[in-house]
């Protein structure tokens, strides 16, 4: 056959994580995310209210238990607001990553029937989560205003920081969804890890509650999610709360540990998903 390949038209490649034009990628991601978002609230009487209720109920229980009865918050300023924000961000992270585990397998009918950039699937899961997160954050904002947290220009830093959390969630989502195709026991493993992350992050307690155990405190802060929560609290809600630099005892390179881990999760997640993408349809 002829060797003049350019004259033969566009070559057909196999499926991949990111092939095709950016606009189609965006359209697909947004459409799938909106569809998923709609589906979640169709058919239930209270619809969207449930999405608000879940973190709020969890917050209510935790608030009564840890801020009123046990008082782990100690002298931490605006602890209820911090608690609510933590719960909302953790709920987002947990929901997105849990949903992403089965995402590719659940979208089997698409994966096996049509060509589209495979990365759309984890991206749309994260985007659906972001819709919920955005609405929940409005509740946090209202609560913060009612509680009397002073309004400061640093509040503008909150969205980019939350976005970092979404990127971290995307990194995990890519890794988990691709791994699940090969090994089905990722689902229970990830459930357990999320439990560990819940208690292993300063969600229920402020990080200074661990001041007596500096090693434990620093290990906790190595978790990228925990590091993000610490920084958001410091920057947005209470500048007197410890930041990462303080937590790591002023050793600046240790601050790089959670950052590196977070970046590594995203890089490895993308790398692995990209590697698996061409064969996902066959391995399902």
């Amino acid at each position: 056959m002829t060797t003049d390949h350019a004259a033969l038209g566009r070559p057909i490649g196999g499926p991949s994580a990111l092939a095709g034009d950016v606009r189609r990628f965006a359209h697909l991601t947004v459409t799938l995310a909106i569809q998923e978002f709609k589906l979640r609230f169709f058919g239930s009487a209270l619809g969207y209210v449930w999405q608000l209720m879940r973190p709020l109920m969890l917050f209510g229980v935790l608030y009564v238990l840890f801020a009123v009865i046990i008082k782990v918050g100690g002298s931490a300023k605006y602890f209820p607001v911090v608690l609510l924000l933590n719960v909302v961000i953790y709920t987002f992270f947990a929901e997105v990553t849990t949903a992403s585990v089965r995402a590719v397998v659940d979208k089997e009918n698409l994966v096996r029937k049509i060509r589209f950039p495979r990365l759309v699937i984890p991206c749309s899961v994260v985007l659906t989560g972001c819709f919920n997160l955005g609405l929940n954050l409005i509740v946090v904002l209202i609560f913060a205003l009612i509680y009397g947290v002073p309004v400061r220009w640093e509040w503008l830093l909150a969205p980019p920081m939350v976005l970092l959390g979404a990127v971290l969630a995307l990194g995990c989502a890519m890794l988990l969804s691709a791994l699940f195709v090969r090994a089905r026991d990722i689902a229970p493993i990830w459930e357990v890890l999320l439990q560990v992350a819940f208690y292993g992050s300063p969600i229920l307690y402020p990080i200074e509650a661990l001041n007596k155990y500096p090693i434990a405190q620093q290990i906790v802060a190595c978790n990228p999610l925990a590091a993000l929560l610490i920084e958001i609290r410091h920057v947005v809600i209470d500048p007197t709360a410890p930041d990462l630099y303080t937590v790591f005892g002023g050793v600046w390179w240790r601050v790089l540990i959670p950052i590196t881990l977070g970046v590594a999760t995203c890089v490895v997640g993308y790398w692995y998903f990209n590697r698996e993408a061409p064969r996902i349809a066959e391995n399902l």
Partner: protein
Amino acid sequence: MPSEPPHTGRPAVVVDGLGKTFAVPREHVMTIKERALHPLKRVRHDTFEALNGVSFEVEQGEFFGIVGRNGSGKSTLLKCLAGIYNADAGEMYVDGRMSTFIELGVGFNPDLAARDNVIMNAIMLGLTPKQARSLVDPVIEFAELEEFVDLKLKNYSSGMHVRLAFSVMLQAQADIMLIDEVLAVGDASFQQKCYDEFNRMRDEGRTILFVTHDMGSVTRFCHRALLLERGRIVTIGDPAEVASEYLELNFGRETGETTTKGDVDERPGDRSARIVEAWIEDDTGERVVTCMQGRTYAFKAVVEFLEDVDDPAFTWIFYRSDHLEMMVATTAWRTERSGHFANGQSAVVTVSFENVFGPGRYHPSVIVAHRGRGHDVIDRWDQIFSFMVAGPYAAGGAVDVAHQIDIDRAVTPPPSTSSLQRAS
């Protein structure tokens, strides 16, 4: 017969040396626990060559059929073309916007209304959200589902579901379409509508690659067709030839011996001769069990004489599977004096004819009788074997005799005699 495709410059689709191999693990290791318990156990793989060195070109505006038996690789070929599977070898090129229809209604969600599903489906097919939204009305209109546009898809009947999906496919307006056996669904009137649309698309000069089992639609629509078997191209070219080759592949598998083992004692007759075996030969002299329509076959039976017999009558009766007597070939009328056969002598009785039977299964009987009208039976073997008749045209009659149909438009019948003329 389809008209010639409009020929322009470069081909719409080029496939060059395409190969695809699947690794089939012998034991499926799915969990980490299993892997942890048996760290040294290697997962052994059997490789399965789904496609091997497949090369072809499809011209612009061509209606191209891809046929093959189950597991021949045609769906894999389509999925490689669609970019769903990664090809292991070879190259493919496409010129124009291509849409894939491995299944109708990809991305349909039963909990969403028809409108949302149409948009979703169209976006999956590569349209922008704006294009997709403007598609909703024409799609709903074509599917005749205006009253149900806001109904959730789970409340649709399966026929409505298919209609909706099919009209998205038609309205998506791709230059090149890959279609996988979509006509297997829907009721007869919907299928007819599909056929009409196929005709229209062909006349519009769209390029269509069409995977099917239905040889009727191959010969009706395709300009060219390709026959796959075990991942390789067997034939590529004229649809009618490809269709008949496909049928031969499908039914001509069990060649060789056809005679069923029957107990001689249970057969009627006085045993002065016995039928030993019977078979079918095609025009090359090879034994077959499937007869293609329109070809000539020889039906042969060996008779061994156990006594001296004068002028026996030999008869073949061909029964359709519903016991309709299709044809009787006998020497009793034509060659009454068939001669003297001595004890121990054998004879081969051959009936050959051009096969005009309609597709289906047939059971011939072979009868040897004493001279006369054939009632004084020497040996009669009913259902000596069965054979299939296969043909690309399944119009429906019991026989398909070579014929010609003319339509003469110019004649206007006189009003008073019109009914008479229709009868004549």
